[in-house]
């Protein structure tokens, strides 16, 4: 027998005999004969591992990964931050990789404690009291936050800042088809949300949703967003950035009710978009509405400190159709990875990464804006990312810069640039050197000439 099943032919025969069967096909006697596949699946024959590896390796060589040969200035929710060998080594330990949801805490203290530490780290970063054990990604966390806030306020109107990552906005819209939430877009003016006039539409919002920094990299006035909530009785959901949080005022300080975010920057590779990590934090008052898993501290029968998943009654496997979330498998390994990465960064490292990213961003932005024909798309303060308006369509410029060895950024959709396709979102992390930035700027100057 091939594959990974250990059965020898003799064993299969003995097992069938034990069952009183004469062939493996007999095991499927309950399946109506008409349904059983006669010819077998029309798939290529199984390949030995080295062949399969070579096949995938070929595919991987048909991509251009970020790295020395394609220096990355793209962000838009996925960032090229340092992932040190120590994070990769620890996060790939097979005990973390090949275990299941910690249903038996007596033999799962490893994952449980790591997630407990993750929850604590996210709580400290956001300033909130409690964080969950992860959701799929930033978009999924946003959807869950909106669901929580709608349930808490009983109102289905959601004011969504256009500064929210537009793909997250799309995901929220998709799922709102089921939940029936009404999304009201609130436009940006010069990079930050223009709350005035949003209520023109009449219905009081249950949720106000804003990103900090926002999609264009700008720092929103969260006091204004909070004021809107105070005025309307809505809950304030802030999509924060965990790296920026190293130097920015935590969302809790601004009065956020729920904080969500994308955790990819905390030790995950770009990975073509996944698996990433949905961050979710809120106040203890909302803990019974918290979506997904929650680990808590307790003791074992001998009084030793121990951890366990708790408040399970909220979860779908017990509350079933009364559950407010259906999440089951989440992104635990990424939460463990983030705990390791945040352990590596620590208090000083996360601030340093944010600071260095901000320095590179400032340097790069000023240089780019010095190129004739390139203009700022917004003037508000930025941290790690900024938007410019190009004299050519952004997709064209991006392709030209790929040829020069740069991933220039993300092309903005027209809504950010008065309908034109000339908006480019550029991210500069702490990994970008001055030499790289200078070369990028030179290449850009040529590309837009």
């Amino acid at each position, binding site marked *: 027998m091939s594959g990974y099943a250990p059965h020898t032919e003799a064993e299969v025969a003995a097992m069938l005999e034990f069952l009183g069967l004469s062939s493996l096909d007999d095991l499927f006697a309950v399946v109506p004969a008409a349904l059983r*596949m006669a010819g077998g699946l029309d798939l290529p024959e199984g390949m030995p591992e080295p062949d399969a590896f070579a096949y995938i390796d070929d595919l991987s060589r048909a991509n251009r990964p970020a790295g020395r040969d394609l220096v990355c200035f793209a962000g838009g929710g996925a960032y090229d931050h340092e992932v040190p060998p120590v994070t990769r080594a620890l996060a790939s330990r097979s005990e973390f990789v090949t275990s299941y949801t910690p249903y038996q805490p007596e033999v799962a203290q490893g994952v449980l404690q790591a997630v407990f530490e993750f929850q604590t780290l996210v709580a400290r970063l956001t300033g909130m*009291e409690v964080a969950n054990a992860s959701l799929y990604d930033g978009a999924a966390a946003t959807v869950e936050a909106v669901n929580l806030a709608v349930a808490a306020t009983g109102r289905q109107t959601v004011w969504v800042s256009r500064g929210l990552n537009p*793909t997250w906005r799309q995901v929220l819209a998709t799922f709102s088809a089921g939940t029936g939430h009404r999304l009201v877009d609130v436009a940006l003016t010069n990079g930050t949300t223009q709350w005035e006039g949003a209520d023109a539409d009449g219905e009081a919002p249950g949720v106000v949703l804003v990103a900090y920094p926002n999609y264009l990299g700008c720092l929103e006035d969260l006091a204004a967003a909070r004021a809107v909530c105070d005025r309307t009785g809505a809950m304030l959901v802030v999509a924060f950035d965990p790296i920026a949080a190293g130097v920015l005022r935590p969302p809790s300080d601004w009065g956020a009710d729920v904080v969500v975010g994308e955790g990819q920057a905390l030790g995950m590779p770009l990975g073509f978009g996944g698996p990433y990590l949905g961050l979710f934090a809120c106040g203890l008052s909302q803990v019974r509405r918290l979506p997904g898993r929650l680990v808590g501290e307790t003791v074992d029968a001998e009084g030793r400190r121990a951890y366990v998943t*708790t408040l399970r009654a909220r979860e779908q496997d017990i509350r079933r159709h009364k559950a407010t979330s259906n999440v089951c498998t989440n992104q635990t390994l990424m939460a463990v990875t983030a705990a390791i990465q945040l352990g590596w960064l620590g208090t000083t490292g996360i601030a340093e990464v944010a600071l260095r990213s901000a320095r590179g961003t400032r340097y790069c932005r000023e240089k780019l804006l010095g190129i004739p024909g390139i203009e700022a798309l917004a003037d508000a303060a930025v941290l790690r990312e900024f938007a410019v308006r190009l004299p050519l369509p952004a997709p064209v410029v991006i392709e030209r810069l790929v040829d020069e060895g740069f991933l220039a950024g993300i092309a903005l959709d027209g809504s950010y640039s008065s309908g034109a396709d000339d908006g480019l979102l550029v991210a500069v992390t702490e990994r970008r050197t001055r030499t790289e930035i200078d070369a990028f700027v030179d290449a850009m100057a040529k590309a837009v000439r």
Partner: protein
Amino acid sequence: MTDVVTDVMPEPAAGGRALSAPLMGRDAEPTLFELSQPGRRSWQLRTTGVPEVSLEDLVPAEHRRPAPPGLAEVSERDLVGHFTRLSHRQFSVDLGAYPLGSCTMKYNPKICDAVAVLPGLADVHPGAPASCTQGWLQLLVELEQQLCEITGMAAATLQPAAGAAGELTGLLLMRAWHDAHGQTRHKVVIPDSAHGTNPASVTLGGYEVVTVPSDARGCVDLDALRAVLDEDVAGIMLTNPNTLGLFEEDIVAIAAAVHEVGGLLYYDGANLNAIVGVVRPGDMGFDIVHLNLHKTFATPHGGGGPGAGPVAVSQRLVPYLPGPRPTRLADGAGDRYGWSTTPESIGRVHSWHGNALVLARALTYLLVHGGDGLKQVAQLAVLNANWLRTRLSGTYDVPYDRPCMHECVLSASSLKKSTGVRALDVAKRLLEEGFHSPTVYFPLIVDEALMLEPTETESLQTLEALATALEKIAAEAVEPGGAQYAAEAPHATPVRRVDEARAARTLVPTFDARRDVGS
């Protein structure tokens, strides 16, 4: 049981002490926060030469953090010691069998880990132009094709990040279909044995749950089903084999009945490992199928995730699939692959393209197996489960005594009656016999359920040892003191039985928060 945490950690803790490692002692492991010492650090960052502007110059005062985030400050040595010790406090498939019903904890080949770290996959920005991601696009298109062949469907989205996300996606597809046909339906039928994500997804999909009971065979009661079917039923969600590990023999009749009222059939693919290569959901009459790649196609569960939950659909539902979808382009001079979205698409269900690196692992698994290999997976998974069921049927109750598929549900009901030893006690005792516990108390319709899914990667010798251990536990229970011994189990694990009630009563969700939340 005491109400105070008795082992108060010395602050600050010693990062180089392995007293918490099961190899050395049985103490608690300090947290990262107890290991922290101001002034310590692990991080090292690239030298960039970028001008060193101060934070004050970069960020306006009102936006600056008043105080540092106060995470933890540890040396790399302590970081490594800490997480290595935590890994020694964690059971995993790589340590031993994990017969957790409904979860398909099979051995995951190491080759999949190796492909997932290839720089040409791992370091690709998801927003890079298609010209830079032709390999990824081809990979996704080929995976989609293989999944369609396996399910008997026409097309698939790879975006959903897990099974539950797939379920909700499927329900939104159902809704889009009915909407497009000018119908507003309100109900979705699910059997009482269904996994909890099914009813939760139905609710989130904006539908009302109608529960249909199981009959004495453990299958959907066809008459009861017919009784609830009407033109307000949007569809039915089924897993086949169902969560009792039993094949729904009447599936053809069920499909006909649902289709007759204009409903759609949704297949919860969590149990596909039982039938892959043997029978296809499409051939059974299903319209929408989600797959749990982290179950059937051996992408590891990661302590609770990540997973991947692609959704495949029959031809008529293809236009509604989430977009953008990776697509093979017409032959020509430029790129061979690109993205496409239909106007009818329900929209994105993931911020990018799904859990891509998980998808790459799954394709690798499929390539190594091929069609015949996959069929063998199902055959041997079912063989193992039936062997266990038959072997243990004298020791534990078998609520539905007929051939099972890839998992078997036993019950400790009689054992509990005669000795007081519950399914939970059996589960805890098994841990110290060298096995992970089966799933307990699920499905809900079985009293004192013990749900065993050995998977195809466990050997006959392991099954024998597992069965022997379960027999030993049952035999011990009737001996003097046996029930007490079981109730106090486990005895040999790094922590003894964990006080779950206390965790819910006095909630300690972080190192910093402690709140009495009542009982």
